[in-house]
């Protein structure tokens, strides 16, 4: 019964209109091989206890990515004790990101048939200080693993279902823009013997008129414009107070 409810909840989360986005049945085993998933996408796959499963997804400023994960555990008869499961999210620089909602590291009792995990990230900011760990636009890595379990329970089959949603919140509170998203630049490294000439990226001048100074649409526009209208109305009211009323 509980499984049914969770399945229904997962389906509801995943949004039935997500039909065209195919269900993924694979996962990577490291940061480099992490499988790309998209918001509204579902993952259904077989794995074993002890696996480290990696996915990655892109996020933009203003989004609040949320993961809902259900792991159907091996038969209770094969297991000898409780298992800790853990979902971790890292940004494009592999820095740990905090989950502000959802059960990030539940412990499944020895008799439990499944374990439900969730993680809601903070809203992705459009800019942050380089010294700061705030979530920024770019790639996010998801790592699902069983962290603590009896050694003899390793390698038993489990079924993993994951749904990712990324509702967009208001970006009005945010200023600034990240010059380049936090995306892993996957190219082989090269040890230099002499310093390479610096690429002069800023030398190209934009000939077109730039509209960068104009903030993106957000609630701030509504507040400011409303404020202007109210100021105009109160101005008229104030003006009318100084007129003599005609009897």
């Amino acid at each position, binding site marked *: 019964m509980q499984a049914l409810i969770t399945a229904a909840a997962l389906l509801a989360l995943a949004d039935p209109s997500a039909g065209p986005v195919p269900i993924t049945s694979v996962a990577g085993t490291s940061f480099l091989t992490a499988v790309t998933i998209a918001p509204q996408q579902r993952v259904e796959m077989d794995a074993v206890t*002890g696996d480290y499963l990696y996915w990655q997804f892109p996020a933009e400023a203003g989004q609040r990515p949320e993961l809902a994960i259900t792991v159907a555990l091996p038969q209770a008869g094969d297991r000898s004790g409780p298992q800790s499961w853990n979902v971790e999210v890292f940004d494009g620089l592999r820095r740990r990101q905090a989950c502000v909602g959802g059960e990030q590291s539940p412990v499944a009792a020895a008799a439990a048939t499944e374990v439900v995990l969730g993680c809601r990230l903070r809203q992705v900011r459009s800019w942050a200080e380089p010294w700061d760990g705030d979530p920024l636009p770019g790639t996010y890595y998801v790592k699902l*693993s069983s962290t603590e379990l009896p050694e003899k329970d390793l390698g038993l089959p489990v079924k993993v279902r994951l749904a990712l949603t990324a509702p967009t919140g208001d970006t009005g509170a945010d200023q600034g823009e990240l010059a380049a998203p936090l995306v892993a630049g996957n190219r082989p490294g090269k040890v230099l013997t002499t310093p390479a000439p610096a690429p002069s990226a800023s030398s190209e001048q934009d000939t077109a008129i730039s509209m960068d100074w104009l903030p993106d649409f957000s609630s701030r526009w509504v507040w400011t414009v409303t404020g202007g209208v109210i100021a105009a109305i109160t101005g008229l009211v104030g003006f009318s107070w100084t007129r003599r009323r005609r009897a």
Partner: protein
Amino acid sequence: MIHKKLSIVAAIGLIAASAFLGTTPAHADEPRPEPPVVELVLDVSGSMKAADIGGETRMTVAKRAFDEVVDALPETTQLGIRVLGATYGGDDKKLGCKDTQQIVPVGPVNRVAAKNAIATLKPTGYTPIGLALREAAADLDGAGSARRIVLISDGEDTCTPPDPCTVARELAAAGTSLVVDTLGLTPDEKTRKQLVCISQATGGTYASAKSEEELTDRIKQLVGRAALPPPVTPAVVTGAKDCVTAPLLSAGVYTDRELIGEHRFYRVAVAEGDELRASVSIALDRPLNRDYGVLLKAATTDGRELVRGVDAGSGRADVLSTGLRWSGDAEPDLSARSDVCLIVSNSFASTTSAGAPGMPVELSIDLVAASDTPDAPGLGRGWLLLFVLAIAGLAAGVLAGWLTRWWVAKWGEN
């Protein structure tokens, strides 16, 4: 409805964009990606005679599973098969522990030949896992950037020393990346511990199979993973003991080895207006004490710390990673072109295997344009703003009214 459609289009666009962005740099420098390469190593030792999987012998089940895997193999996959303990049935341990042969050479698979080779196998001798792993790694030499071995065994190594786990760690430390996935056929405790250790040493996975279906599905999954190789082959680099002698790195992905408690130094030239992005992952490839941490520090060449990335954890884990961003704009003294020193250190501890080879380190470095600190917001929000604007408007209206009245009174009729 329109919103939903839009979000789907956006999602597909994002996937396409990320796929495009992700693959372009790799394709720009390199020729076409190598075909996936994987070698199956099957234990054909005497213990495979045990009839404990649904009343059939382990060997029969393994053979059927192999047949099915060979049938379902994608055309592009290059597969090799090696067996151990298949031929020598005598009592001489020295001879028995050299008993491993490659029955299908690594390459595009000839399904009929592969199946015939599998059909002739008879469970016979010893279990020289360590030697078989060494030979399998040699089979895959030069075959691809990411080598993958799937080891299927039902019993522990009967030829130790060398301990197959140590062998696996040595193999992973030598040359390009080698991943050993292990599969235990109805494993007992010792077998399981050994197979888990082998897979952990190489960043592979361990699974146990108690039925034919589990065995077949898992082998298929592991062979399928070989078809998804990493998007980049990290360059091998050796970090120095101090900043002066540290290797100068360009943007890219590197791999190194670091001993427990060791500090490794690298240098990166960061130009004015650039932002340095670095991330480091250390793989936990051996039994370790419960708590651990990793520290990535950026410092000037004379040792002043600029910024650090740190992460810590405890318990089971495969890697521990952290990252940092730094741009010189905020430091006028350093904003001129200067080298930044990256220092990777760790606080692992191990009672059993603290020695060489070091733990695998993966370092990625990126240099992008710095992100400027934003100006104060140009637009406002909130009730206070509305209130202030309303009061300001009211005051301005009253003032304008008085001014008009004064004007009219002084200069005559309106």
